[in-house]
């Protein structure tokens, strides 16, 4: 049998588009309505997605309250609670949540995910991240945000302890950041161990992934970027005694799909027009690592900027695009606010399938983490239009072959 692509349904409240909640058909109560999520999970399961994927942050996502109040992202479910509820309302789909190594303890986190794994019959996964937001840091003491290298050293130690705990061993660990004495007081996972997902793209993040991850979630705009990341990460695995197929690389993709290309474009434009200018400019400012973009005329060009000490590559990307396409601040803001830097495809099911197929068969992805623009509409559209097209082409399963998330992903059962 030829390899099939893996698909995650990345569910984020009202949808991934920054203005999704304002769409007339978006479910605006998403952050307080468990039935909304049960319905989404059942849609994704009926479409045979490998997993549901949830984001997380331990704090607001936007420091400016005026801006935050124009987005839907200040409130939502804590994802482990959410997935525990979904575990008994679904039967096959994998349930993956982000949780930070910066503000948790390995024993508690390993125990909680293992419990989710038992509730779901072996369908749980943990997306390991470190936290880089000062807004989150302020909720966990006054010591401030830790430097990148320290965060990853803590993450490495954290992953090591969790792995031992999930193997049923007593860590007897007395390390730099943690001390953990006993084995977990829960039985072993139905799938050997919950699936370990990672999202870091930095050099040290890639090494940690090559060593411990089962799935890697990443952002890539172009085929070349995606291919370079894929080859680099798979190339690092031999050093840790692992086969390339032991990790599934699943870049994010945010499709806007409809029966006709014109309809898809119209739907996309409709969403773009809903982005409030100050929200778009605030997001653009954060990508450019400057604070006062709002004082320039919004329909004028991007001003000359001092070189950034923040996200250098992101700033260069934005500046380059503004010069090349002659875009105003407003146009640029809408462009970057739409999919938060993720790959966006606007078109028919065949067009979306063509693009996914090219990256999958071209060795740039093992699958995709699908980020619906607004919910539930765009998940429904992907499930009813794109999934059958992928199935017709033999690129995606028609039914689940096993019961656990490791079964779906074709991952080895850990020793």
């Amino acid at each position, binding site marked *: 049998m030829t390899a099939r692509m893996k698909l995650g349904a990345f569910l984020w409240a009202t949808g991934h588009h920054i203005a999704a*909640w*304002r*769409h007339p058909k978006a479910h*605006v109560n998403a*952050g*307080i309505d*468990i039935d909304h999520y049960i319905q989404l999970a059942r849609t994704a399961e009926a479409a045979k997605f490998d997993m549901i994927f949830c984001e997380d*942050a*331990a*704090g*607001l*996502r936007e420091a400016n*309250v005026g801006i*935050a*109040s*124009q*987005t*839907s992202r*200040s*409130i*939502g*479910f*804590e994802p*482990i*609670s*959410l997935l*525990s*509820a979904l*575990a*008994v*309302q679904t039967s096959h789909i994998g349930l993956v949540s982000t949780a930070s190594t910066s*503000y*948790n*303890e390995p*024993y*508690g986190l390993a125990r*909680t995910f*293992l*419990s*989710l794994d*038992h*509730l779901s019959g072996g369908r749980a996964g943990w997306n390991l991240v470190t936290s880089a937001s000062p807004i989150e840091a*302020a*909720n*966990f*003491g*006054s010591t401030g945000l830790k430097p990148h290298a320290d965060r990853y050293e803590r993450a490495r130690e954290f992953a090591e302890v969790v792995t031992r705990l999930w193997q049923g061993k007593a860590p007897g660990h*007395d390390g730099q*950041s*943690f*001390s*953990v*004495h*006993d*084995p977990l*007081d*829960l*039985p072993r996972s139905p799938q050997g161990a919950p699936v370990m997902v990672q999202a870091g793209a930095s050099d040290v993040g890639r090494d940690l992934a090559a060593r411990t991850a089962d799935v890697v979630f990443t952002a890539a705009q172009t085929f070349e970027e995606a291919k370079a990341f894929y080859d680099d990460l798979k190339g690092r695995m031999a050093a840790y005694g692992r086969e390339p197929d032991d990790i599934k690389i699943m870049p994010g993709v945010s499709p806007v799909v409809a029966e006709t290309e014109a309809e898809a474009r119209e739907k996309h434009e409709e969403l773009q027009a*809903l982005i*409030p200018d100050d929200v778009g400019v605030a997001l653009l400012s954060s990508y450019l690592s400057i604070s006062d973009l709002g004082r320039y005329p919004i329909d004028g060009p991007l001003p000359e900027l001092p070189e950034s000490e923040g996200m250098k590559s992101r700033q260069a990307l934005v500046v380059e695009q503004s010069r090349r396409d002659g875009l105003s601040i407003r146009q640029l803001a809408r462009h970057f606010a739409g999919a938060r830097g993720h790959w966006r495809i606007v078109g028919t099911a065949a067009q979306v399938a063509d693009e996914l197929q090219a990256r999958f068969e071209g060795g740039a992805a093992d699958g995709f983490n699908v980020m619906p623009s607004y919910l539930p509409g765009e998940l429904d559209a992907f499930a009813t239009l794109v999934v059958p097209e992928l199935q017709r082409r033999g690129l995606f399963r028609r039914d689940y072959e096993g019961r656990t998330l490791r079964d779906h992903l074709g991952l080895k059962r850990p020793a």
Partner: protein
Amino acid sequence: MHLAISLDIAAATGEAVLDFSRISKFVRQAEAAGVDMVAISDTADGLSSSPFEATTLLAALATVTNRIGLVATASTIAHQPYNLARRFASLDIISHGRAGWNAMMAQSPREAANFSRPEGFSDTDFRRRSEEYIGIVQGLWQGWDADALLFDKSGGRFHAPEKMHLLDHKGEFFSVRGPLNVARSPQDTPVLVLSGLSEADFDIAVRTADVILLESGSVESAKARFDDLKRRATAAGRDPDAVKVLTNISLTAEDKPAATADRLETQFRARSCDGFNIELPAQRSAIDDFADRILPELGQRGLVRESYRGTTLRSHLGLAGGGDQ
């Protein structure tokens, strides 16, 4: 009288593990009998036979029940206060206002050893830390006004900025800015249950708790303690009825239903408590026995309500707050 059931899923007995369907069947039986709440604890001091942790189990139970209150034990050692406040705020929304947090006021040495606190805390430090911790959690739960969410699509206003409040807590043990990134509870705040109290914790308890669980003793000593707690609550500026005092009763499988009901009825009529917390071991026989024989007996004597008046745990307990008061 108020009736809670505590189920310690972690008590390893060598019996068959309680799986989710067995636990949910029992909780639905308790719901059918009108029990106020089921409290899940999972604090084994050694290996457990249960596959579940209490808060995750609570979330799952919330989707298969409609009325009964659901309380999970979670320690102040195992979680950061911001994370714990989020977890319970979420559970409360998932359960439509039926969640409660049972905070253990006693330290577990095993927990300290596994949560990077090998030395633990002195009793007085642990007490001060617990009070600070509870204050943070309750403060975070009040970070959003009840009418903060506007959902105004055309006007582009998702929430009212002035109805979201920072906590800005800077204390001896914690510093937490807030606000919580979970919406306000359907019952204003999840219910706070305190257990494992020593006498020195009583003043913290009457200031902060909605429900206090106390070990049983003689009727006379329980009555004296009950009156003392209600006096302390009044002195702390609270309505004494805003703090429900439940007496823990341990049942073993061989208890006769009539004897159990007699015992509860006598203690309740002596006004030694607001109700009871029945502690059940994770044994199928004890659970089946309780559901099949004792619950009906309590119902026949009119000791347990026939049906729920409201939908939130606060309304079951007769506490202020919540949407359906």
